[in-house]
């Protein structure tokens, strides 16, 4: 039994786009150790994306490979959560320049990892045995991502006035994007129907608990729910994804089939 291709792409695109975003810190980390930590995180995510793309490519056939899926699809084809594509700086027009904000990076990684420890844990029981194996491997990685980001969330939230203010601002901006986790997309419905996917709604209580416990320890306030619900996983993205893809895909598109 195979998971629907669009479902695999949804999982892969989340990992690839967030991996690409976190890789922006490579060479620019606040300290050397953190530079390496974020690059490690990025490589874990890109590794997950590769396995999922390879699995999807086998089903698509027609010469599809992990590379064609990563580098030769356009914005509307991507199925990642909008959360994953946002820049590291407080939200602004995509063409504006700003300084990367470590608090945005940490809060996003925390919110995403808190979800993925639950998702990968349940996907270990997927009827798609290859997806189940990918889930088992990814679970170990994302457990460390959660530990790393949660640890920093506490340090920033319960740190100085300045770090607390930045962490709170990042949380206020990013938490509303998590509402997308709980809406249902056609690929998720299809995956649930054939036993390869999971019912996201059942994860919400656990996710809230992981988040609320950490926020309390970090002395951060959870912003009120409501407002716009993003639609990235349905292919309707923010203006930011195009810039991510432009940078990520430019080399492969200028030199198709390049190797080194």
């Amino acid at each position, binding site marked *: 039994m195979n998971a629907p291709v669009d479902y695999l792409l949804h999982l892969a695109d989340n990992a690839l786009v967030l991996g690409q975003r976190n890789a922006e810190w490579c060479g620019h980390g606040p300290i050397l150790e953190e530079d390496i930590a974020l690059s490690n995180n990025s490589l874990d995510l890109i590794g997950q994306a590769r396995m999922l793309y390879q699995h999807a490519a086998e089903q698509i056939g027609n010469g599809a490979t992990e590379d064609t899926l990563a580098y030769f699809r356009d914005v509307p084809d991507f199925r990642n959560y909008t959360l994953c594509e946002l820049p590291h700086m407080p939200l602004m027009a995509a063409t504006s320049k700003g300084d990367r904000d470590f608090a945005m990076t940490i809060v996003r990684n925390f919110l995403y990892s808190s979800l993925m420890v639950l998702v990968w844990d349940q996907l270990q029981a997927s009827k798609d045995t290859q997806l189940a194996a990918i889930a088992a491997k990814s679970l170990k990685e994302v457990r460390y991502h959660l*530990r790393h980001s949660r*640890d920093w969330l506490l*340090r920033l939230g319960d740190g100085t006035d300045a770090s607390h203010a930045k962490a709170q601002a990042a949380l206020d901006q990013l938490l509303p994007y998590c509402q997308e986790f709980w809406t249902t997309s056609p690929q998720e419905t299809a995956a649930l129907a054939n036993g390869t996917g999971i019912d996201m709604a059942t994860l919400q209580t656990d996710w809230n608990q992981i988040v609320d416990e950490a926020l309390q320890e970090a002395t951060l306030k959870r912003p009120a729910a409501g407002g716009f619900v993003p639609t990235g996983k349905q292919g309707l993205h923010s203006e930011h994804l195009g810039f991510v893809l432009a940078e990520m895909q430019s080399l492969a598109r200028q030199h198709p089939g390049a190797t080194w």
Partner: protein
Amino acid sequence: MNTTTHTPALKEWPLWEVFVRSKQGLEHKHCGSLHASDAQHALQMARDVYTRRQEGVSIWVVPSATISASEPNDKGEFFEPASDKVYRHPTFYVIPDEVGHM
């Protein structure tokens, strides 16, 4: 708001020595040092910096300040007296063939 004081983090964070035990090894070996705000922080950083190529299965971090070290100036009296005492190496014994490798 305390936004005006930008002391570089490294000046506030103490130094830690990192010891890693490899899969084959019995002992933790010193592999480097890093700055971190506390022991937990140091452990996570050591994980990311020193074990990303499967170097280890266990990590120790020790505050550098708690290590007492011999002085380079003491080299003469500390170490040189041993240099002419070759008899302290067990190299003057004939090992019977039956013992094999030891």
